[in-house]
């Protein structure tokens, strides 16, 4: 699968990061790896874009972080907050609508789909 350009993900990165953190707490590098593995390598984002995005989500109160010491090294683990869970639900609904509308236009199908 072709890797996606980071600018294509603009506006969707927040939702992707929230989704990756939904199953449980993860540290920054694990978040990047989860994005990569769950998209079969398509979402291979530069690390420099992911860490600041996580910090911004924390500032917005959608995720929280805890520092722990593992093997003598300080590690920061991120977890979803209650607001983050709510935001993820909203983002999923928005994405479903957006994806259906774009697909309808690109494929030349009427939208909203009538059964």
């Amino acid at each position, binding site marked *: 699968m072709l890797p996606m350009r980071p600018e294509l993900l603009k506006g969707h990165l927040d939702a992707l990061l929230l989704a990756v953190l939904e199953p449980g707490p993860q*540290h*920054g*590098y*694990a978040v*990047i*790896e989860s994005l990569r593995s769950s998209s079969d390598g398509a979402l291979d984002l*530069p*690390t*420099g*874009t992911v*860490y*600041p995005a996580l*910090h*911004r989500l924390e*500032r*917005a*109160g*959608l995720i929280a972080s805890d520092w722990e010491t593992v*093997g*003598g*090294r*300080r*590690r*920061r683990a991120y977890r979803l907050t209650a*607001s983050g869970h709510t*935001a993820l639900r909203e983002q999923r609904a928005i994405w479903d609508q957006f994806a259906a509308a774009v697909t309808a236009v690109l494929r030349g199908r009427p939208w909203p789909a009538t059964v």
Partner: protein
Amino acid sequence: MAGHRLSTSSTSAQAPVDAYLNELSHLLHGPRRRRTRILAELRDGLGQAIADHTTHGRAEGQAVESVIDQFGTPQAVADAFADELITASARRTIAWYIATGPLVGTWWLQLLQPHPWRAGVLGLLAAIPILPLIAVAIATAAGTFATTGRLIRWLPEASPDRAACAAIAIAALAVVGDLAVITLYLQSDASLRPLAIVAISCSAVRIGCSVVALLHATRMRRSSTL
């Protein structure tokens, strides 16, 4: 940077990582605590990534090279963090004014109008003519805090440049306000009693801090627009 070492890697792997983080540390501008945390987090991430690569059979030298390439150049990483650091710096400056404002204001209120409820709005304005400036500063601080913090889920988020401008404006208003009350008091015929000395000292300290905050915020804003 505090020495957190890669526990699973050799010295040959440590040196390029140290050099990378050292270069990055010189390119990051913002609150020291935030920068230290960013560097600690990236050090851990680099260590994890290198361990991951070597576990999958890559030579350590290759793994280090590949991971550093994957993380991006120090300049690219610093650029990516610049917005967050500018916003963090602006919020910290504004928080400082929110915390110290009442501490300084209380002394002046006691000195210039000890009975604000009896004086009414006009009486209060006559005694403390900088009240409109304080109102503007409070509104700017509240607006910037709301649009750079948890409320950005519902409110339009302020850009880092706008947050920095707000911090600059609040610091400038504080300088003008403090200088104005000191000048007004010294020009009046009132005696220099202990309360006045405390109020003037508090304002003088805040003027000094405000000048430093102004220079710092202006420098950060300029570096982000270069």
